[in-house]
């Protein structure tokens, strides 16, 4: 037990000291708390008279702080306290570097915890314990039964799923065949134990495009990539060991358990990604989403090796993904996007084998907004969903075609078609509407007054149709952020607060570099929005944002539009033909059926 004297060097403020006093008393120490407005001389005299072991001072007012603290230390020296008494200073006006410069044993700024001060008193090193955060992975699909609340839409979706299942059953593609090889021939555990890749690469290159084929034939890398060096790998191991030893993870949510908060990474370099991921986790991200390069979606097949990339997007290879996975905190959800290109099914297999928690699949967005041939995307998407079920990977169904100009109701119709098919196949889809200032919204003035109504309407509309998890993205507030970091953080936080109020299951947030196109996202820009979202969640708690009456009208309009779009698909009688016909987004609306992978779908050998 220590004798501790607490004294505010301040005319009125002593709330912080009272909190510390209570914590120290609970820790078993003898406490004496002096009143405010004593002079430094009076405090020193009390410390001498009471034979204190520890003297804890506080100062809230910034005015004259350096002078008063310097005078206090001089008086403590003169009274002989410096050798026998530990002296610390804390409060709003205190910076640790100033306290150290003046000769205090410790200085505590805003945000100091009672535990830190108890450690100081007891001569223990303060190490925040991540296990105390109580953070654990959560399955956002738990509790949802995917039951339809709109019988008309349910019936149409069932009929469309029948059409797709009949159409796809005898079809395959190079992407499906590569996924099959990866699924059957590649054992992740053996590979991790340096026992090779099985027979995978004896048959794999023949199913690949030029870039991977040249890699497997001659070791030629994509021109924007290079191999990581042994020194870099050793450096990564040192960095991880040091960082993990002092790592803890924040919880962003306040009194509500959701939404989970995801951030996207993909600087191009797995090392830099790991730096960004650890920082995001430390500042509260619940999940991270892997972004691969845009050329990855247009390339048949994956490269191999531990590769770094000079441009946006981190190359998907087993080695890259495995390194990133090893660096994740145990509470962090890891999503690997598969949704939009020629490697969709194999990405799901790889994600499943390497320990991802979530993936991303959408046939309609992949076909209409991401450049993949609709026929190919349908075959690959179907098989991807089967693998998602096999590897127990829930996946979001993103509606980014809205950003091309497709109206929300058509994008939602496509999302619901994919969702219905997924549920039929035993998979667990998560609906991903955008919270965005989309072209449709701009043209029609749906957000002329506020950003609340139309975004809220999207959630209301989906909930009128189905009991499904909802994860707005991606990122929320898209096209509302500017290069001004204050504005950008604010816009993201407000959209997060709307998501909080609407009780959705998760959100993906941008950094404050979202609108900056001059270079890679910087790590402080990631922290900006995580901090802003945390403050937003704290501000609103369980309080709600009230949309105006327009939200209900918009929701009805979206539901009607979805039903009409589904009718149009059914009228075509063929899902792929319906995509080409514009039923789920027309060329006039900015959606162009993709051409990557055209004419690569074949009939399965019987």
């Amino acid at each position: 037990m220590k004798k501790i004297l607490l004294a505010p060097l301040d005319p009125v403020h002593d709330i912080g000291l009272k909190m510390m006093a209570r914590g120290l008393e609970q820790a078993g120490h003898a406490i004496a708390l002096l009143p405010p407005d004593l002079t430094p001389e009076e405090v020193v005299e009390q410390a001498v008279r009471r034979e204190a072991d520890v003297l804890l001072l506080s100062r809230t007012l910034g005015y004259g702080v350096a002078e008063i603290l310097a005078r206090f230390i001089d008086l403590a020296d003169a009274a002989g306290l410096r050798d026998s008494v530990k002296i610390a200073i804390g409060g709003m006006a205190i910076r640790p570097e100033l306290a150290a410069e003046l000769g205090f044993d410790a200085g505590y700024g805003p945000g100091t915890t009672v535990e830190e001060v108890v450690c100081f008193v007891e001569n223990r090193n303060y190490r925040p314990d991540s296990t105390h955060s109580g953070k654990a992975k959560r399955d956002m699909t738990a509790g949802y039964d995917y039951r339809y609340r709109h019988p008309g839409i349910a019936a149409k979706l069932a009929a469309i799923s029948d059409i797709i299942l009949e159409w796809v059953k005898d079809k395959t593609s190079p992407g499906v065949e590569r996924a099959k090889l990866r699924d059957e021939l590649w054992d992740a555990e053996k590979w991790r134990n340096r026992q090779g890749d099985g027979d995978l690469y004896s048959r794999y290159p023949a199913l690949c495009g030029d870039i991977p084929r040249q890699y497997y034939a001659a070791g030629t890398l994509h021109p924007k990539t290079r191999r990581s060096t042994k020194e870099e790998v050793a450096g990564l191991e040192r960095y991880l060991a040091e960082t993990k030893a002092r790592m803890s993870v924040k919880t962003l949510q306040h009194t509500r358990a959701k939404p989970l908060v995801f951030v996207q990474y993909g600087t191009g370099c797995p090392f830099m990604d790991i730096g960004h991921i650890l920082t995001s986790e430390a500042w509260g991200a619940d999940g991270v989403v892997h972004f691969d390069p845009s050329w990855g979606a247009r390339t048949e097949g994956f490269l191999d090796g531990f590769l770094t990339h000079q441009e946006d997007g981190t190359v998907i290879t087993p080695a890259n993904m495995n390194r990133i996975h090893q660096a994740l905190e145990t509470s962090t959800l890891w999503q690997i996007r598969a949704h939009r290109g020629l490697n969709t099914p194999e990405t799901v297999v790889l994600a499943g084998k390497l320990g991802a928690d979530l993936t991303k699949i959408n046939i309609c967005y992949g076909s209409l907004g991401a450049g993949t041939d609709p026929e190919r995307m349908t075959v690959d998407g179907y098989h991807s969903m089967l693998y998602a079920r096999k590897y127990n990977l829930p996946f979001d169904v993103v509606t980014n075609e809205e950003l091309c100009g497709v109206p929300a109701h058509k994008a939602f119709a496509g999302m619901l078609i994919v969702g219905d098919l997924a549920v039929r196949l035993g998979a667990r889809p998560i609906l991903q509407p955008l919270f965005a200032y989309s072209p449709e919204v701009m043209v029609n003035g749906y957000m002329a007054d506020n950003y609340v109504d139309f975004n809220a309407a999207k959630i209301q509309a989906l909930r009128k149709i189905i009991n499904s998890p909802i994860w707005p993205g991606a990122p929320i507030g898209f096209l509302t952020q500017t290069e001004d970091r204050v504005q950008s953080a604010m816009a993201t936080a407000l959209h997060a607060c709307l998501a909080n109020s609407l009780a959705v299951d998760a959100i993906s947030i941008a950094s404050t570099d979202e609108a900056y196109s001059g270079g890679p996202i910087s790590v402080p820009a990631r922290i900006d929005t995580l901090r802003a979202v945390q403050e937003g969640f704290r501000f609103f708690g369980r309080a709600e944002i009230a949309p105006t009456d327009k939200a209900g009208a918009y929701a009805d309009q979206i539901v009607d539009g979805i039903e009409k779009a589904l009718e149009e698909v059914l009228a075509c009688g063929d899902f792929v033909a319906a995509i080409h016909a514009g039923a789920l987004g027309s060329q006039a609306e900015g959606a162009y059926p993709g051409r990557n992978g055209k004419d690569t779908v074949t009939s399965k050998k019987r």
Partner: protein
Amino acid sequence: MAKPLEQVMDALDIETFFVCASEEEGRALMLSLLKAWGFKDVDVVFAQHEGPGVRVRGRAYVYRPADKYRWLRAEAGQEGALS
């Protein structure tokens, strides 16, 4: 103590307010400042000019993805990151 620039994960942002007549002038002042400090990979992330001057944020990338980061080196004690 480690050299400060070696411990920058990716970029250094400088935010200030220049007394100047236009956004263009403010941007030029920021780029000039960053270059005067020896940074080569510099940009203006954001600038907003109103009557009295410009609120401006400049950025110097110490490292871009695929560079060799000194905060990741296996051992300490190498030259500075500005070179």
